[in-house]
């Protein structure tokens, strides 16, 4: 979508450039495209309107017609505007001087309150706290049962009793005091904002425990209704923040912008999966990228961090660094990468990958399985030294994997090409080109701040885009691919622009490396 938006904008500005000057109508046309992109991401109509006004203000005075890439420049302005709206004040949790610190969760049915309660409890435990969960959802059948099971998984006790929600919440508070638990998390029943009786009930639940923090739990897939819901809950409960759930899908989550705008309180947490660990603080910059459909490389890294076997990952990286990445290494890394989902999906998260490839969602899992079968039909020696594979071995491998010798040949040839690419330093730099490189550099700076690990200098400088090593720029990969006869897939090679200046430091992020 980001690609689509920036393409559409490039189209508009391309026409303008040929005329030489930017009229108001041109700007209007660009802003309409931006508005469409926001609406398609489910940003509220009114919020989209005020965002577009903000972007217009940002664009005023910028001489876009002279820019080499006005579309990109406008997208950057949009991105910055979104971060500004989503970010601002962050939630700083402080704990009550007389425990427990009470946290109340409320929201519509099915937004994920019960699961989020358990995730939050786990999060507090990780912060060194001792939470108690209270199951005050007596409405939905088996909701308390669900909370008990999840509480057990999180290692957090659950209090509930079959009375009424107000009594349960008050009882939970007494129980927490009795047991010396220092955080109390109250899960409430899902309710519609228009249901006055239930809204009144949740108000009474809230009064009975006087929460220090009240969070609205809202689904990232929510459409225009997000505003009405957020307003109603805010009016009833005076929200302190928002928890955004189901971010592991492909919804753009424009509701985040709407809710932030209405409630004026930070989005505190984001829930990104079905497991209790899939829960973290909210990152405005990532959400802004997501709403615009930009690759989210940090999320990719984080899920890799959770899913990968770290020893295997380390071995792979070492092999890669030392230029001896074999089919055996490839196979073991492939097993890791598969844990992240489909390879097509993975590619779409990577910035700098040619969009023809992304759009075709080119890699289907059947082909991955075929590649895997071929390698698994090789002996360990063959995997280490593909040079020994002669005609007879080839035929055996093809039979073993249920493929043809042509398939085997093709894989071997392409792996060899890939090996050559791995040795050419431009590749990785090129793949991580553009925004990804800046993000990567930032990620590396953040993560490697304390005592840079030995032996990674080579790749680190590749990723941070050291001009001496990375001749490619954003077009690097596409060019290399074209050079290999992959014009169909890699196609659109922009002339590689050599990056000026030394190490890339993301703008405005300079001071973040510890």
């Amino acid at each position, binding site marked *: 979508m980001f690609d689509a938006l920036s393409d559409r904008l490039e189209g508009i500005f391309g026409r303008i450039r040929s005329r030489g000057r930017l009229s108001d109508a041109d700007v209007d046309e660009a802003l309409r495209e931006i508005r469409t992109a926001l609406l398609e*991401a489910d940003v509220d109509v009114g919020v989209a309107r005020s965002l577009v006004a903000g972007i217009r203000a940002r664009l005023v005075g910028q001489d876009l017609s002279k820019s080499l890439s006005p579309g990109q420049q406008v997208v950057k302005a949009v991105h910055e505007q979104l971060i500004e709206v989503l970010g601002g004040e962050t939630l700083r949790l402080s704990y009550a001087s007389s425990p427990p610190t009470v946290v109340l969760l409320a929201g519509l049915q099915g937004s994920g309150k019960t699961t989020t309660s358990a995730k939050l409890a786990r999060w507090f435990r990780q912060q*060194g706290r001792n939470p108690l969960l209270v199951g005050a959802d007596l409405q939905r059948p088996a909701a308390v049962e669900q909370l008990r099971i999840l509480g057990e998984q999180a290692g957090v006790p*659950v209090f509930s009793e079959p009375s009424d929600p107000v009594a349960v919440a008050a009882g939970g508070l007494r129980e927490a005091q009795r047991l010396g638990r220092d955080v109390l998390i109250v899960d409430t029943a899902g309710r519609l904002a228009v249901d006055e009786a239930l809204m009144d009930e949740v108000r009474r639940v809230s009064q009975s425990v006087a929460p220090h923090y009240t969070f609205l739990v809202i689904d990232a897939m929510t459409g225009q209704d997000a505003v009405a819901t957020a307003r109603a809950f805010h009016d009833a409960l005076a929200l302190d923040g928002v928890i955004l759930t189901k971010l*592991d899908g492909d919804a753009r989550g424009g509701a985040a912008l709407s809710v932030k705008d209405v409630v004026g309180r930070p989005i505190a947490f984001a829930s990104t999966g079905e497991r209790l660990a899939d829960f973290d603080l909210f990152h405005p910059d990532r959400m802004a990228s997501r709403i615009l459909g930009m690759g989210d490389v940090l999320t990719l890294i984080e899920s890799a961090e959770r899913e990968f076997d770290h020893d295997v990952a380390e071995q*792979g990286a070492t092999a890669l660094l030392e230029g001896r990445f074999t089919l055996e290494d490839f196979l073991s890394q492939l097993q890791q990468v598969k844990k992240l989902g489909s390879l097509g999906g993975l590619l779409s998260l990577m910035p700098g990958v040619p969009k023809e490839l992304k759009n075709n969602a080119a890699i289907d899992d059947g082909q991955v399985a075929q590649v895997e079968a071929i390698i698994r039909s090789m002996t360990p020696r063959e995997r280490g030294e593909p040079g020994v594979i002669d005609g007879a071995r080839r035929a055996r491998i093809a039979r073993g994997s249920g493929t043809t010798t042509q398939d085997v040949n093709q894989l071997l040839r392409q792996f060899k090409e890939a090996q050559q690419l791995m040795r050419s330093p431009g590749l990785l730099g090129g793949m991580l080109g553009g925004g990804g490189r800046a993000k990567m550099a930032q990620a590396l700076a953040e993560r490697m701040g304390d005592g840079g690990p030995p032996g990674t200098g080579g790749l680190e400088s590749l990723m941070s885009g050291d001009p001496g090593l990375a001749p490619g720029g954003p077009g690097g990969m596409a060019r290399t691919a074209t050079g290999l006869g992959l014009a169909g897939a890699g196609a659109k090679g922009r002339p590689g622009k050599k990056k000026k200046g030394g190490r890339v430091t993301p703008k405005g992020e300079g001071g973040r490396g510890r």
Partner: protein
Amino acid sequence: MLALWIILAVVLATAVVGLVVAVPRRARARRASDTGGAGATTIEKPTAAPAPAVATPDLVSPPVEAPVEKAAPELRERMGKTRGLISGYVRSLRSRSSVDEEAWEDLEEALLRADVGVVTTTALLADLRGRLRAGELRGADEVVAALREDLRRSLDTDKGTALALDPERTSVWLFVGVNGVGKTTTIGKVARRETTAGRSVLLAAGDTFRAAAVEQLEQWAQRTGVEIVRGAEGGDPSAVVFDAVQRASARGNDLVLADTAGRLHTKVNLVEELKKIRRVADRPPGLVTEVLLVLDATTGQNGLTQARQFLDAVGVTGVVLTKLDGSAKGGIVIAIQRELGLPVKLVGLGEGPDDLVTFDPDEFVDALFD
């Protein structure tokens, strides 16, 4: 050619992960060992006893609770709670003498706010503009009337709202959708509706993933007085559905309502699991006669993506639009109908066993406008 991309993707992931994950991990591991254990003291064990894991699906005969006689809710009346959304715009439109640019913008905003979506809204309005220009329509009233008619027509298909049953084999209705849309609740309500219509129903507790999902469906089975087949928690949902079909066939049930775990349409493995459930349920003596996509009315533009993916994967036959008693309008079903031809068949209007009605395009559109 593809193999190369696979290789490159893996290599890149290896490089990134190796650097960012594996190497600094040593440093973190050191830090973690300093702080590890803090906050890990539990004062009290959770009191929940884990649900008994039953290895073989187990037939539970619930005590039948007499259905409470209650009139089915009116869609229009229930949606009426929040009327005034499109109607507000329409009133202001009608008060104007001519259909000017501002009027079009108002109509656009009204449709967008109902979650109809940019593409569909633009298409609908472009058509109306053309007809106005051609003199086919005159004035605001006629434009509004034409819009209503267009919406009604796009929702009213020849496929209709009937839910199919097979006269020979055991019919299976499969309920699918993302997490939290109301699949289990909907099944409870459909069970009530079908038993009231005189059919014998068996529930298959195919959501073996979410904690306490089976218990939730069991409570619905009790409420509606139907039998339920359940399996082990975390077990294979296909096995549960298979068993339910066998059981239903042996006992002469008309219909199996199969619950499935909520899954995001982006999760490849889970979608594969769903395909398997469908394949298993389709084997004689069973036949899948309906695959109902349960869709929450609050869902925005992602609803279209969901519908497309589930349609591709398991051949969805219709949509159940839930939570329409809230302030959300559920306009995404218009886009789904137009783009994918999927009819809305049922509408959920609350949490009670009788809060389910057959979708009526006229009422739906009237509720948007009046």
